[in-house]
């Protein structure tokens, strides 16, 4: 933005926002794919804000009572606790997507190896922070977290070191436990913030990996040249895009939370409120808990939050226990906790090919893809059924994606390199898929003849989901065909005219913003109608997101020209949906 006169000129002279030393990227990079990390970061910011506010009423000496009072008596207390949880869900989920995208695109390659490693460490600390976070609640899930975590650690590291680690993490004295968990959670969150800064700082030294459309799937150039003509000034373009995206993420998190609160108990993995044990609640000093607490407690069974369900499932694969030695859970611990980050960490060092095309990188594409598919399968399997599993069942379930991904990769890679794919290979691939469809049928017949339990359906569903994910992954790989052509979007130099529809969209959003501010300040009762209050905050964020989108579009309208209203509407549709849902919850 030019530093003219007036207020803006005055501010620019002092703040020098147009001189911020951030890596500059072209206008064409203002898309979701290049901003997945910003989604993680904005979820983290929301977590920091809500988490610090939650400190006001957290009671380490009686967390059950403290949290019960927080969600039933404090204005916006329920909003804060549930938003903190949903923001954690959002952060972890978007971090997984962020990781998967950069793995798939080969963004970890030279010279970005350290960005990748810092990201993995940040992710590990994120999971640890989340673990201590949900342990803090003191509800059923939290108690199981401490119990299972202690069990796993003691069985993995032997009687002496196991005890030391348990004492370090959870304290032996139960009266002191929640002070320690709170300290752990906050210290780890602070560490997470520092690691995020390291990850972001390392990233900023290189800028984003150039788009494969521009490099023709090559590792060169490693960085976006800073003398290109289509680079956007960080301020205001990146700033407005980032603000727009961040407000959208916040709004979506809070909106999903409001919907979840209004829907009541759907599934414990989605339930936004603590699930208190009624007896523990009575012991903590709440004698007549409301009906919804009893209902949630009754419908809940032992299961960690969704991002640890995969590990929970691995604990149930009893053939993995080393019963003969004193560290019986060590193998499980390694498979669930050490192996995935370790495998991811070595990618930059084994994948030194100068191509970033997924079909030129067999190990990351196959191993990384299977890792994600397996994590998804284990998560769904764990959510559907609990119990010990035989090696045969497990092997069958995980063989399906393995075969499909490997065969799919071989066929696509041959096709891409122009080699004859071979009728035999195609036939074999089709045969495997057919077999995979038939296997579950045969499995049901086999198990049914043995008097199968209802867990069978969970096994079957897991198998089919693995099949679907594997086929989907192969299809994703196929979209990278034929590949190889370089293209660079030319710099658009349009007029600075802002068409009236853009103004109209922003004005409607501003109106909704004013309405939500007023209702939030003057009308809604956050204790009597916590879901309504939550929905209003969602509308506040999302309407502001719409307004900022208008400003962003106005700033870049000469470089990213307006074509027709249909292309501008999608972000604003989210605002209207939020307004509709808010109205439905409030009335």
């Amino acid at each position: 933005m030019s530093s003219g006169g007036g207020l803006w000129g005055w501010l620019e002279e002092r703040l020098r926002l147009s001189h911020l030393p951030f890596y500059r990227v072209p206008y064409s990079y203002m898309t979701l794919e290049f901003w997945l990390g910003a989604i993680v970061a904005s979820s983290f910011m929301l977590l920091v804000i809500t988490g610090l506010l939650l400190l006001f009423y957290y009671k380490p000496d009686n967390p059950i009572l403290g949290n019960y009072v927080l969600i039933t008596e404090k204005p916006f207390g329920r909003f804060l606790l549930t938003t903190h949880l949903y923001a954690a869900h959002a952060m972890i989920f978007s971090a997984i997507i962020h990781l998967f995208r950069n793995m798939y695109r080969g963004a970890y390659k030279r010279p970005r190896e350290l960005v990748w490693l810092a990201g993995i460490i940040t992710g590990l600390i994120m999971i640890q922070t989340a673990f201590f976070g949900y342990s803090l609640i003191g509800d059923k899930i939290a108690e199981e977290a401490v119990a299972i975590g202690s069990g796993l650690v003691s069985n993995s590291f032997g009687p002496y070191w196991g005890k030391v680690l348990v004492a370090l993490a959870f304290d032996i004295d139960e009266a002191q436990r929640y002070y320690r968990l709170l300290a752990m959670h906050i210290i780890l969150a602070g560490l997470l913030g520092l690691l995020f800064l390291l990850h972001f700082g390392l990233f900023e030294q290189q800028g984003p990996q150039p788009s494969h459309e521009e490099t023709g799937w090559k590792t060169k150039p490693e960085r976006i040249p800073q003398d290109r003509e289509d680079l956007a000034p960080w301020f205001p373009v990146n700033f407005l895009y980032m603000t727009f995206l961040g407000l959208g993420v916040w709004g979506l998190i809070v909106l999903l939370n409001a919907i979840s609160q209004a829907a009541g108990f759907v599934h414990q993995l989605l339930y936004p409120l603590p699930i208190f044990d009624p007896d523990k609640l009575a012991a903590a000093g709440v004698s007549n808990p409301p009906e919804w607490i009893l209902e949630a407690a009754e419908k809940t069974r032992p299961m960690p939050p969704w991002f640890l369900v995969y590990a929970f499932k691995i604990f149930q694969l009893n053939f993995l226990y080393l019963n003969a030695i004193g560290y019986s859970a060590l193998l499980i611990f390694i498979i669930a906790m050490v192996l995935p980050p370790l495998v991811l960490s070595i990618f930059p060092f084994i994948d030194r090919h100068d191509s970033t095309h997924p079909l030129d990188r067999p190990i990351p594409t196959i191993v990384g893809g299977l890792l994600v598919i397996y994590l998804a399968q284990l998560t769904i399997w764990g959510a559907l059924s609990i119990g010990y599993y035989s090696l045969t069942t497990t092997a069958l379930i995980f063989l399906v994606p393995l075969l499909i991904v490997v065969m799919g990769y071989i066929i696509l890679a041959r096709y891409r390199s122009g080699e004859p794919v071979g009728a035999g290979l195609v036939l074999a691939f089709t045969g495997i898929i057919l077999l995979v469809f038939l296997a579950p049928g045969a499995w049901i017949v086999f198990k049914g003849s043995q008097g199968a339990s209802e867990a069978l359906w969970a096994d079957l569903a897991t198998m089919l989901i693995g099949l679907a994910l594997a086929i989907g992954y192969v299809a994703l790989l196929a979209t990278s065909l034929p590949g190889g052509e370089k293209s660079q979007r030319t710099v658009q130099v349009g007029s600075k005219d802002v068409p009236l529809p853009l103004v109209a969209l922003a004005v409607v959003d501003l109106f909704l913003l004013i309405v939500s501010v007023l209702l939030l300040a003057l009308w809604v009762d956050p204790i009597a109608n916590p879901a309504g209050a939550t929905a209003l905050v969602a509308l506040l964020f999302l309407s502001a997101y719409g307004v900022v989108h208008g400003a962003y579009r106005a700033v870049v309208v000469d470089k990213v020209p307006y074509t027709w209203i249909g292309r501008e509407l999608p972000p604003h549709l989210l605002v209207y949906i939020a307004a509709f849902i808010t109205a439905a919850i409030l009335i």
Partner: protein
Amino acid sequence: MTSRRDFLKVLGAFGLVGVAGGLAPPIIKYVMPPIPPQQPFPRTKLVWEDGTPVKASELEVNKMYLFAYPMVNTPNFLLNLGDENGNPVEIPPAELPISMDPTRDEAAIFKAQGGRIEIGKIEGRGGVYKFPGGVGPHKSIVAYSGICQHFACFYPALRFYPPGVSPPNPPNEAVAKGGVIFCACHGSAYDPYRGAIVTESPAASPLPAVILEWDPNTDELWAVKVEGATITGKFCNTCAQPEEMVGNTTTVRQVA
């Protein structure tokens, strides 16, 4: 048309201000702790533990009695003051400063010269209040807050020493003579014979006075009000839920 462009930029700025402004009321509502409502002072009859009314003539001279007023957790001294021989002493009314510093005031110099502080010479700050003096047949009965105005210590750390009885480790001669309310926590001393003004730092406010009413016909006593500085540690003297206030009666017990 650049004006539309500028208009949208301004709108964007409004959006950011709107989010910040819109979040402020919820955050304030959440962070603000509940402030208990201010209650009227109760008119409370002083009774013994068996429920019979306290008669002014039943109160022994120079003994220490305690009762709660105006809240159930705010103890007060009830004293029938007398001289060394046990004869009741009339306690005169006075205008007292809400805040005072006996180490700096002219009164302190006066005291250092061996004299008793004259109330009129205290350089008070923060306004004055009317201490009504003693009640009862000899105008010798007074009541003061039993919470030290320095650091909120209370009985048994804060207690009354009759004339001739020295507190342990008295800070100076004047205190050693007795006839003081002395706090063992940090050595503050108050003069109960003259409205419980501070005679020894670190306290900086006289003990708040509980205003008593005496009915000459029945010889019964009522507590009706607290005057002076706010009782230490309280937001205001009657900021409480109704159930935290004393009711129509409050129990007096003798502690020494």
